[in-house]
């Protein structure tokens, strides 16, 4: 039997834009306006379920060493949230 453990990092899924909102992977899809278009016709629930992120990697898919992930342009949260809110109306 697996021993009980303490959760240190857990994914929180929410359909509300704000502190508990999923955001898009801008590093994989630099044109988030395109993402917004792709979201048309997608339910909010589906959009949230499908939005997964990938770590920053080199050309061979290995994670970048160190911790330099602080740049704001990883995603454009406003674009995504605005679109989600628009769909939700």
């Amino acid at each position, binding site marked *: 039997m697996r021993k009980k453990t303490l959760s240190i990092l*857990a994914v929180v899924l929410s359909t509300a834009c704000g502190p508990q909102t*999923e955001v898009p992977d801008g590093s994989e899809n630099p044109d988030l306006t395109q993402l917004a278009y792709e979201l048309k016709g997608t339910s909010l629930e589906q959009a949230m379920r499908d939005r997964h992120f990938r770590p920053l990697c080199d050309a061979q898919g*290995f994670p970048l*060493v160190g*911790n330099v992930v602080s740049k*704001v342009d990883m995603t454009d949260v406003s674009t995504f949230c605005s679109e989600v809110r628009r769909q939700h109306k």
Partner: protein
Amino acid sequence: MTVFTLEALGGPWGKRLAARRVELRWEDIGAEASPQLVAAAREVWTRSAFSEYASGAAFAEISSSLLAVNAPIDLIAAAGEFVADEMFHAELSSRVAMALGGAVPLNVDLSRLVKPAVSTDPLMRAAELVVRTCCVGEALTVPMLNQSRLAAGSLTIEAVITRILKDEAHHAQLGWWFLDWAELTDDNRATLGRVAGEALRGFGAIFAARCATGSGAGLGRLDCARFDHAFLDAVNNDVVRLLAQRGIIVPAADVDALVAAAA
């Protein structure tokens, strides 16, 4: 691929990380930040937790490679301790992400955490790993975290970054001490210059996305202009210059490619 989460066993094993902990007011994080900034910061701190985890894997590989070349035992011990440091940093980053509302779903491949060395010579295998991890990745981390701390906008996040920085400077230093110890040939140095250049090119991924302005800086995030300037400055001053002092020349084309990606 798996969604990145972390867990701990506690008990006697938890004490090892507990000894590193500092008292922080987690409930204060993001109290006055906009919802957009908090949401974006969740992504940054989830990514940060994974970066630290992957760095721990890199130091585990370095420990093994140093053992294989009968490196000085204090250097080997330090590399082993750095694995624990990185797990602690992963825990700290996770606590920030959780205090902000929880992690974002980050798809990771835990079977490909560290790019393997290609050399068949044990000393060069160690050198490749050390150059990529310590002399490039960790050397860039220190100045970038310094910038993030200045723009934290939260005393708790400032304290978290300060605590991480306390260790990261040593992580970079291991690389320079290793290179000063290892007896490398001119061919070895030329190879390591290319290894460093390739590692630097990998960071071009940071500049692949267009620059967003919607959620602003703070909570550990930097605006694009500040990030780009500090990053390129660190590439030259904290990586290329220090490698050159040891006869390891990073090909100019690799640095130019990074500068072009940032433009």
